[in-house]
């Protein structure tokens, strides 16, 4: 089973204060190995509402940090 995305979570009441990205892998013992990253919007976007964030925009961020998450999972024996 390949490393897969688990979640992309936008946090904040009305505005998005941070977006958390979580990927998951499995190690040789069958245990789940997870890695996460947090995106903190710029000051200019600090009052950007949730509805104003598009899926493609979030996916673009995820693509940039995907390799770091894969590396973190691999370092723990996940794959």
């Amino acid at each position, binding site marked *: 089973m390949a490393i897969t995305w688990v979640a992309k979570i936008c946090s904040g009441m009305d505005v998005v204060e*941070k977006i958390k990205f979580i990927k998951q892998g499995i190690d040789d013992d069958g245990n789940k190995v997870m890695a996460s990253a947090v995106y*903190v919007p710029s000051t200019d976007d600090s009052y950007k509402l949730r509805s104003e964030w598009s899926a493609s925009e979030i996916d673009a*961020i995820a693509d940039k940090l995907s390799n770091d998450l894969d590396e973190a999972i691999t370092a723990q024996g996940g794959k």
Partner: protein
Amino acid sequence: MANVKFSDFAVRTTVPTVDYIVGYQGAANIQIAPTDFLGDYLPLAGGTMIGDVVYNDSVKAKFGTGADSELYHTGSHLFFDNAIGTSYIRNTAAGGTGILLRNSVIGDIQFDNEFAGNILFNTSNVERMRIDLDGNVGIAVDNPEARLQVNEIPQAGGSTTTAPSLAHFVGSTAPSTVNGFATLKLEYPAGATPGDAGAQIMFTQGYHSGDPDNTQPVGSLRGYRTGADTQYGGGLQLTYQPDALPLGLVPGITLDGDGTVTIGTGTVAAANAAADDFVITGPGTTATGITISNTSDSGVGTIFFGDTTSSAAAGFRYDHNTGDMSVSAEDDINFTCDNATFAGNVIIHDSSNAPYIDFVEDAATTDSKARITMDQVDTDNGTLIFSTEGAGTLTNALTINQTGIVQVNPTNASTGGIVNSYRAAISVSTSAIAISNPATYGGLASVWVNSAGNIAHDLVSYSLSGIDVVASQPISGAAAARTYTAVSGVLKVAMAAGTYDVYATETRVSLT
């Protein structure tokens, strides 16, 4: 020819066969006339010879009734033989030169005591010197135990040495500290200039095992002048023959006129002039040093500092058994150095049970600017206190108590404890850069990002691979978006745009 008076002759009725007249060659028992004498005659009793008496070779002039002494010449040698009593050559003439024994041709004068006996030399009818039957020469001693023995006070009999030696000088007067009595005095009239060498005792030894007659110098002890001309001052030099240099003794140890002992020939820097009583200077780049050792792993080696008033021993002591080195002083011990390196444990103790390390501003004061104190709670517990000086008073700035609790600024209720951590900026752009050291479990990082006044602050919690931003706040300007990740316990950050100076202070949790 002298006249012969017939009245000198008595009328004899018999003529003894032993009576005869020297120089008369006529017939016996006849009347003789003066013309019968051929030359001078020797009267049988008294009288004076007025001409030479010639003895043919080996004809002896004998003295004494039993020929006690004989004087004769063999044609090759002159002999004076005495068979009875003591032989004297005695001079009683006043005003002369005494007895002169002179050999006026090339040759030796020998005093030959043919059998086991001594040869004595007397003055004032007292023995002054002798050559004993073993060939030892004694001056003022009649039983010399050395090839040459000189005694200050005449000594008769007895032994003054435990073993024979070549020369033995026995002084009975305390040695003088001025130009007075000395058991042996070596004098060199020149050498009045400072630095001049003086009288010398040289030691030579075999140079070649196959040639016992070939000896070369190995060292010497000689006088050494240090005082100026017409001034007192000097010492000694112990010289040696270097192994790797040409033949010639060079100074090894010098004792000069101010009591300084120098090993080697170098000079002492002016900065060390206060410690030049004993100087070791090696040649060139050769290492120098002092080794105090013994032949076993026991006992104590000591360098001791004493004076007339010290009541406690001060110095360095090395225990050969335990390997411990002790440095002791009557009062403080101050170290002045660029760096002090201890390759083992440093143990500090004090009878107050609160030993401390003080930091002062310079060597001229004991005013502590900071102090590290071990405060003993009881026999099983202690705290460590770090104090700093504020407003002239040492204040407890940090305490680590016996349970490991760290208290910052514990005695200042108004300000409380403050922990600041400063870290150099890490330049970060759009690629993820590590901004922490690896944590074995995770940590909490305070991250400050700044680019031309566009500043934001994030509080980031991270583990080996998980992460969360606990709080985030813009500070000024318009800071760019950033993404935090954790890879193998290392916190990384990447900026969405631009290049930022990132300052991260983290508290890490590590597994033991």
